[in-house]
C-alpha cells in the first residue's frame, strides 16, 4: 500500500524564519496521526504546508505519489478537509455554511440533501434545528462541530484537524472522536487531548520545527 501523504526532507521558511526543518514522515490510508509539541513547534505549519499555504525551501510533499506543485495543489485541496481551531463558517446561517463548498465548481455536483445535513449534524450531537440559526449566534463549540460536519459532508480522503475539540465538552468530544475513528478516514491532527491521542496509531512530536520523536501504537 502506498502512502496517502509523504513529507520528504521538507524545510519551510516564512518571513525569513525557519518554521519546519528537514521533516520526513508518511501517512497511510486509514491512519490516525497526532502532531504534538509546544506552541510554535510547527504543528499547524505541517498542515498548512501540505495545503500549499507555505512555500517549500527544500524537500518534497507527496499526496498519493503526486508532488505538491502549483499544478497539483487544487487537486490536493479538493481531496482534503482542513478544519481549524476557530473555523470560519463564511455564511450568515448554519445551512448556508454547510452548503458553502457545494457552490464551488469542484463540489457542485455533490450537493447533499436535507436528510444528509441532519444525519451528519446528529452524528456530532447537534440538533437539526441549528440549521436555521444565524452563524453569529452559535457558540464556539457548535461552530467547531459545524465545520467538522461540513468536512464530513465533503467525503474527503484526508482530514486535517487543528485543535478542533478545544471548545467542546467531554460528551461532544467523544462523539467527534467516534466519528473520526472510522477506519475509512485518514486523519492528521493537532491536539493535546490525551483521549484522542490514545485512539491514534502514530504520534509525531515536534520541537522547534524538527520532528523529535515518532511513536507508533505506544512504541517509540
Amino acid at each position: 500500500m502506498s502512502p496517502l501523504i509523504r513529507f520528504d526532507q521538507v524545510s519551510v521558511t516564512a518571513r525569513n524564519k525557519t518554521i519546519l526543518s528537514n521533516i520526513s514522515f508518511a501517512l497511510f490510508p486509514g491512519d490516525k496521526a497526532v502532531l504534538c509539541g509546544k506552541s510554535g513547534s510547527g504543528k499547524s505549519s505541517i498542515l498548512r504546508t501540505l495545503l500549499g499555504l507555505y512555500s517549500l525551501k527544500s524537500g518534497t510533499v507527496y499526496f498519493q505519489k503526486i508532488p505538491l506543485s502549483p499544478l497539483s495543489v487544487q487537486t490536493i485541496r479538493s481531496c482534503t478537509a482542513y478544519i481549524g481551531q476557530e473555523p470560519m463558517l463564511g455564511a450568515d446561517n448554519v445551512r448556508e455554511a454547510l452548503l458553502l463548498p457545494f457552490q464551488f465548481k469542484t463540489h457542485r455536483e455533490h450537493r447533499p440533501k436535507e436528510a444528509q445535513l441532519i444525519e451528519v449534524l446528529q452524528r456530532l450531537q447537534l440538533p437539526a434545528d441549528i440549521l436555521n440559526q444565524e452563524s453569529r449566534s452559535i457558540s464556539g463549540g457548535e461552530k467547531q462541530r459545524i465545520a467538522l460536519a461540513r468536512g464530513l459532508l465533503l467525503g474527503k480522503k484526508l482530514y486535517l484537524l487543528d485543535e478542533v475539540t478545544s471548545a467542546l465538552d467531554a460528551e461532544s468530544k467523544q462523539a467527534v472522536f467516534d466519528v473520526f475513528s472510522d477506519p475509512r478516514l485518514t486523519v492528521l491532527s493537532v491536539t493535546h487531548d490525551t483521549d484522542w491521542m490514545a485512539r491514534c496509531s502514530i504520534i509525531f512530536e515536534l520541537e522547534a520545527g524538527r520532528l523529535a520523536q515518532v511513536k507508533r501504537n505506544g512504541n517509540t
Partner: protein
Amino acid sequence: METLDIKLPQMGLLYGLCLLPGLLLWLIGLRLSRDIAISILRMSIQLALVGIYLKMLFNLNHPWLNGLWILIMLAVADLSILRRAGLKARYFALATFTAISSSVLFSTAYLVTLVIQPAHFYDARYIVPLAGMILGNCLQGNVIALERFYSALRKNENEYATFLMLGATRWEAVRPYFRDAVKAAINPTIASMATMGLVSLPGMMTGQILGGSEPWLAVKYQIAIMICIFTSTAIASIINLKLSLNIAFNAYDVLKDEVIGKS
C-alpha cells in the same frame, strides 16, 4: 453670449475671500494658515501652467501632441492610484496602466467619434478636457476598488484560506471581495447620477453655462460625460482587479507579502 472676464483686481478680491475662513479657523484654534496659503498658491501656479499649456495645445491642435498629453495624464493617474491604494508601483504599474488606459481611451473615443463627432477626432478642445474628466473620476474609482479589495483580503485572510481549503479556486475564493470592491468603486458614480441636478449642479454643466452654452446643450454634455465616467470606472476597476490577481498571488493562491505595500 460671452463669458465675463475676471480682471486682476477682482482676482485679488477673490483671494481676499479666503481671509474670512482663515480668521474663523484661527479663532477656533486651528493653525492651518500656512497649509491653506501653500494650497492656494500651488493651485494657482498649477492651473496657470495648465492654462498656458492648454492654450498652446488648443492653438497647435496636433494629434500626436494631444495624444502625448493624454498619455502623461494616464501615467500620472497610474502612479497616483497605486500610491493611494497602498500598492507597490513596480509590480502593479503595468496592470493599472492597461486598465485605465483601455477604459478611458475607449470611453473617450466612443464619446468623441460616435456621439459628439467633431471635424477632427483628435480636436484638443474635446478630447483633452473629456479624457481628463473621465480619467479623474476613473482614478477615484480605481483607488477605491484596489484599496477595498486588498484590505478586505488582508482582513479576511482566514476566511479566504477557508474558501480555498473547501475546494474553491482562487477566483471563487476572492469573488465576494471582488464584487464588494467593484460595487464600492462604482457606487459614488451611481449615487451621483441619481441625485444630479437635485443636490448640486454638476461642474461641467455649470462651466458650460458660464461659458455661454445653452442650458439644454450643457445638460446633454453632462449626461454624456456621466455615462462615460460610469462606463470607464466600471470597466477599469474590473480589468484592474482582474489583472492584479496574477501579480498579487503566488502559484499556490497565497497573497504575496512582498507586492502589497504597508497597510
